[in-house]
């Protein structure tokens, strides 16, 4: 933590307002309470949407999503890309201007949906990059 000089404080508070407050390196406890980057469940249910009369299959799909922090030290995270380490260091030097690495999917897979159109013809559509298989720090 840099030695606090008065003008630095002023600059910090200005930055603080400018960048919406929470600095992950100042309020340490807030940082620790945030979980590290990982995959979370989210199921898109065609059944709950009431689409059973026209979608033949599937009943829905586990889209999932990525959530959590990519904070220093990165080696605590699975799947951090090499560049994420550089991004973290630059962020450390300039936390209000350079973002931390982002927690995003590193592996996505496809699904196929089978459904009737208005004329009762049948359509099978393949969708790429619809399901998160794993998340990581980019």
């Amino acid at each position, binding site marked *: 933590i840099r030695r606090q000089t008065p003008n630095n404080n002023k600059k910090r508070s200005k930055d603080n307002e400018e960048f919406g407050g929470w600095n992950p390196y100042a309020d340490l406890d807030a940082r620790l309470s945030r*979980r590290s980057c990982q995959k*979370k*469940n*989210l*199921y*898109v249910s065609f059944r709950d*949407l009431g*689409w*059973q*009369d*026209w979608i*033949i*299959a599937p009943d829905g799909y586990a889209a999932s999503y990525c*959530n959590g922090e990519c904070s220093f030290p990165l080696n605590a995270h699975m799947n951090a890309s090499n560049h994420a380490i550089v991004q973290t260091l630059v962020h450390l030097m300039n936390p209000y201007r350079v973002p931390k690495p982002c927690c995003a999917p590193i*592996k*996505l*897979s*496809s699904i*196929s*949906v*089978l*459904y*009737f*159109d*208005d*004329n*009762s*013809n*049948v*359509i*099978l*559509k*393949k*969708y*790429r*990059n*619809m399901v998160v*298989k794993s998340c990581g720090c980019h």
Partner: protein
Amino acid sequence: FYYDNGVDQTVVHKHLNKREKKEMQSEILHLLGLEHRPRPVLMLPSKKKLEVDDGLSSAPRFLIDVYQSLTEEDSGELKLTPDLIEREFNVSDSDVHSMDEADIIMSFVNRGQHLHGIRHHHSFGRFWFDLSEVPAQTTVISAELRLYINLTMVQENMNTTEKADEEETEGKSQNFSITLYEIGLEDSLIYIDSMEIDSHQEGWVAVNVSVPLQKWLVKPEENFGLQLVCRLSTSGKQISAREVGLVGSHGNDKLQPFMVAFFRSSMPSTQKQLGQQLPVPPKELIDDEDFENDEVPKRSSR
């Protein structure tokens, strides 16, 4: 609306009200690349559709087999394991290749028997398919008309046929030739393909109809359908499709003639990567000059 609450439990976040549910539906429809929620006439039986054995004709059954034959590869792509579909529908290697390559596969129910205004003798041998729902920005990889030859029908017909010339019908196997035409303007017939059928042959046969399909997608007003003409190979005498053993619109649901088409999505790759549709910024944020000479096709408003 469920989500994971951070300690690996799935909790109800909130119950959407009617308007929010409608919004959520339209967002997911858009994600699926659909402008509206289809309202098919044919309502599916409520129980698990994939196992439903009856009530589904050959067109949906073909695609259910394809759907069940798709497996996910390590790369995240979907790959076809052809055993099931080969056994059930006798598909060729080129079909399997088209299924792997296709982003969209459509099977079309035959509407030919309901068509009026086309003065062609055999009501059976006539096929017409409704192409109005083929998704825009797609290109045809291939398409085929699939017909089922039922051996028992051939034998029944041979027994009832009067023995006009014994040697033709005596035990010896007969050969038939079936020719498929595209019905053009003023009921003209445009040759597509023909094939020889042996009277001991049973199962699905396919005729390549990629060329007429591509033409109909460009000129929907010229889609007058297809006409099948059957003949005895020896004498060239014209016979009905029933005598060849071809199952028609009044036959077994599962063996009905249908068309299947394989399409590649021709959207710019980013749109394809993003699951078919890019989010479109609201109009007020778009200043026109940005989009003046933009080669990206006109986007649908959201």
